[in-house]
C-alpha cells in the first residue's frame, strides 16, 4: 500500500473510526445520557463520509451568488442530504433524552445495569 492510497482513504478511515467510537461508547456506557451522546457521535461518522465522498480539491462551494456559472463545484447533493440530517438529529436526540429523563423520574436510576425490567 503506497502513501497515496493511504492518503486517499484518510477521511473514510476517520468516518469508520467515528462509527466504531460511537458503538464503543454505546456498549461501554454506564449512563443513559452518555449512551445518547455516543449515538450522536456515531451519526457524525455519516457526515464525514458523505462530505468526503462529494469533495473535490479544486472545487468551490456550490453557491453561485458571487461565482460565474460553469466553475467546478463540490457535490451539492451530499450537502443537501446532510443539511436536513443535522437539524433532524438534534430533535431525535431530544426525543431520546426525553425518554431518559422520564425513565429517571420513574425508575430513579440512570445506569443501564440497573434497568432490568425487560430481562427474559
Amino acid at each position: 500500500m503506497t502513501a497515496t492510497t493511504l492518503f486517499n482513504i484518510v477521511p473514510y478511515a476517520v468516518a469508520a473510526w467515528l462509527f466504531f467510537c460511537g458503538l464503543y461508547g454505546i456498549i461501554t456506557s454506564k449512563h443513559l445520557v452518555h449512551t445518547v451522546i455516543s449515538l450522536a457521535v456515531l451519526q457524525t461518522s455519516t457526515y464525514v463520509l458523505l462530505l468526503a465522498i462529494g469533495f473535490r480539491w479544486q472545487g468551490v462551494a456550490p453557491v453561485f451568488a458571487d461565482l460565474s456559472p460553469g466553475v467546478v463545484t463540490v457535490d451539492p447533493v451530499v450537502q443537501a442530504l446532510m443539511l436536513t440530517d443535522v437539524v433532524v438529529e438534534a430533535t431525535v436526540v431530544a426525543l431520546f433524552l426525553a425518554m431518559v429523563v422520564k425513565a429517571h423520574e420513574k425508575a430513579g436510576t440512570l445506569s443501564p445495569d440497573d434497568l432490568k425490567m425487560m430481562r427474559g
Partner: protein
Amino acid sequence: MNAKWRLRLFLVAGAVFLFLYLAAAKNLPAWGDYRGPYGDVMSSLSVYERHATDVVNAIDYDYRGFDTLGEEFILFTSIIGVMLLLRDPKPKSGTKDEEGLSKTVKVTATASFGLTLIFGLYMCTHGQLTPGGGFQGGVIIATAFLLIFVAQNMKSFKAITSHPLMEVLEAVGASLYALTGLSALLIGVPFLTNWIPLGTTGDVFSSGTIAIISASVGLEVATGFILLSYTYLEEILSGKGEQ
C-alpha cells in the same frame, strides 16, 4: 453478558467491521476526486432552471423537496414525542422568579435579541440566494427567544412560549409545506412542482415555491425548538413540588 465479555465480543466484531468498511473505502473514488454525475448536473441546472444561486437549497427545497418534507415531519414527530413524554398534563400555575444574572448580562442579552431575530429572519428568507435557509434560520430564531429567557425573567419567557399558539404555529409550519405541494396538484402538475413564477435571479422573491417552503420550514423549526426547550424547562420553571 457481563461488561468484560461484551467488550471482547465487540472488539472482535468491531475489527471485522473496520475491515469491511476500509475494504469498501479502498474502492471508493479517491479523496477529493468526486466524479459526479448527479452533483454536477445539479450545479449546472439550478441557476438556469430555478433562478436560485444556492444550489444546496435548490436541491433541498425543490429537486429533492419530497425528502425534506419527510425530514420536516421527523422533526414534527420527535417534538410531539417529547411533549408526550415530558409534559405535565396538569400544569401548575405560579412561576419562580430568579434574580441571579448581573444587569450587564441582561441588557446585552435583551439588546442581542433583536439582532439575533433579524439575523434568523434574514436567513429564512434568503435561503435560495446565500448559504442558510429555513433550517438554520429557524434554529437561530429559536435561540433569540431563549435569549429572552436569559435576559428577562422566566415569566415573560413562559408568557411567550407556553401559549397554545406555539403548537398551532408549529403545525402550520409543517402543513404549509404539504399544502404548497398539494397546490401543484390543483393546477394539474405533480406534487411539489414549483409552479410559481421564478422571478429574477438574486431577488428575495425569486425561485417560486422555494422561498415559501424555506419560510415554512423556518417557522416549523423555530417553533419546534422553542417548544422543545420550553418542555424541558417547564417543570423547573413552575417550581413544581418545591413548596
